[in-house]
């Protein structure tokens, strides 16, 4: 296993607030890496820095060995580094199949490809993935008419449609009915094992992250507090203190 994302010495502040200071971490290719930390610890800021949502103040971010910290969001996405949002985002006025079809991998799409229709193979793939997340029955409904949990599944399916190398998931189980969480964990794991997608997951639900991740990083107050396997993190006193507010 080798590192597919290498973050070294990244700092980002908003005005006087240091959201991330001197963060270094790695995401191993083919694995599931977790990112935890109390609210406001800088997890989403780190995600946003990686996907190019805002410029970083200091440090370097490498994806597959090349520097990406100066690239714009769509360019990074086309490299195969994709993110989902904490506040689910789908295209509300388009139906599920349309949502899926426009999520095709744009790195493979030339300018002239835009002026053709989707072929049967892509429609089949879109419907297959909708079936994979359990939305096949609702495929012709508008994205905006789905429930929050269903939108979250749709967003996940759209991400898979894009054939990413690495998928950054910002709280995939937040707001999802607890009975559906197991199904979602199972699908995330299958995306990792069957489709070979490296996952990097922010998660508040400890049961979920301990169950999924093979390596976990813990942030607190914008600094890297601890890292290690799920067992190590669970038994790390500084992590427990951070969550209980004794930092």
């Amino acid at each position, binding site marked *: 296993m080798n590192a597919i994302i290498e973050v070294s010495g990244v700092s980002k502040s908003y005005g006087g607030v240091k959201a991330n200071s001197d963060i270094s971490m790695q995401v191993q290719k083919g694995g599931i890496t977790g990112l935890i930390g109390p609210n406001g610890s800088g997890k989403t800021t780190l995600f946003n820095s990686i996907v190019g949502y805002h410029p970083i103040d200091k440090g370097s971010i490498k994806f597959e060995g090349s520097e990406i910290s100066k690239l714009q969001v*769509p360019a990074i996405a086309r490299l195969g580094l994709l993110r989902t949002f904490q506040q689910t985002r789908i295209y*509300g006025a388009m139906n599920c199949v349309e949502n899926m079809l*426009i999520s095709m991998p744009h790195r493979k799409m030339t300018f002239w490809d*835009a002026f053709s229709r989707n072929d049967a193979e892509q429609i089949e793939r879109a419907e297959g993935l909708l079936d994979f997340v359990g939305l096949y029955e609702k495929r012709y*409904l508008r994205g905006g008419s789905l429930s929050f949990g269903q939108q979250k599944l749709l967003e996940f399916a759209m991400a898979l449609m*894009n054939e990413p190398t690495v998928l950054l998931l910002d709280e995939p189980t937040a707001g999802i009915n607890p009975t559906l969480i197991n199904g979602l964990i199972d699908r995330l794991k299958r995306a990792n094992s069957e489709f070979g997608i490296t996952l990097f997951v922010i998660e508040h639900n400890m049961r979920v992250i301990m169950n999924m991740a093979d390596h976990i990083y813990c942030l607190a107050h914008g600094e890297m507090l601890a890292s290690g396997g799920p067992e190590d993190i669970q038994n790390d006193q500084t992590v427990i203190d951070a969550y209980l507010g004794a930092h």
Partner: protein
Amino acid sequence: MTRFMPVIHVLLLTLVITAPFLLPDYRSSLSALWILIIVALTWDLTGGQMGYNSLGNIFFYGTGMYVAAIITIGIAYDVGEYTDAAGGGIFAFTPTQYFMGFGFGLIGAGLFCAACAIIIGSVTFSLRGPYFAIGTLGVAIAAGELVSNWEWVGGGQGISMPNYPGEQERLFTYYSFATVGVVLYIFLRWLYTTRFAAAMNAIRDDEEKAEAMGIHTLRYKLVAWAIAAFFVGIVGAIEAFQALHFEPLETAYQTINLGIFMVVCVLLGGKGTLWGPIIGAIMFHVFKEITWNYFLGWQWVALGALIVVTVVYFQDGLMGWLMSKKPEWFGIRVETRDTSTAEAAE
């Protein structure tokens, strides 16, 4: 519905071709209607399909007029000399010069406006929502002021075009507009089935998501606006020939007239649909003709009231209202068990 589409289209095309003979007294009015239909359809390309409400599309109309004038006059004479003599010297154009000017003028206007859209768009498309609207409006107003101080093209006095070398000028104008309109309709009907349209809709629904998914957002925005600019430029060019004489602020870069009318047409008919802008343009044109003919003196008040009522109570327009009442007509499926929430979400 789709079964009858070929029949409906043949009937519509027959109507388009025969209209100036069925209503011979209304030929100029029908030409004016075509202008509204074309500018409304192209406005909806960015406004309705892509969520970028431009108030500056009139820039392409005015620029198209001037480009056509410069090309037509330039073929036969020196443009500066021609405008200097405004009214004084008579400059004759042969039919060949006229039609060459017309052909090259239209194509030149379309291409020049498309190029302008790409250049201006690469700046204005960094603006979102109302800022984009105001930014583009600023471009149109500034262009009008600049041209009115540019003596080479006649400055504030405007510029005169050659007379049509023949008898049937109104028919010629009507069919010129109608051809552009029909071509635009066929083009958009095709375009709205492609991935390009899906990308535009994605930008409209959530541009940040579209970026995060790797869609070439800026590229699609520029191309969409360039397509709109191409057709609006051509319409402006035809109007330049019809108007015979035009000046920059009231006729060419008429931000408060046609610049606003095109938006009202789309709002009346329904944003983001192919037929909404067309129906809206017809509704608006009828309203405008009636108020201008029978309520003269109050026509602007009536128009203002129409805009207020549309914006406040009727934002989705006729097609939007139909879509929420009869979604199945438009191929939109809603959950049968739980229709109320599906509709509320729209």
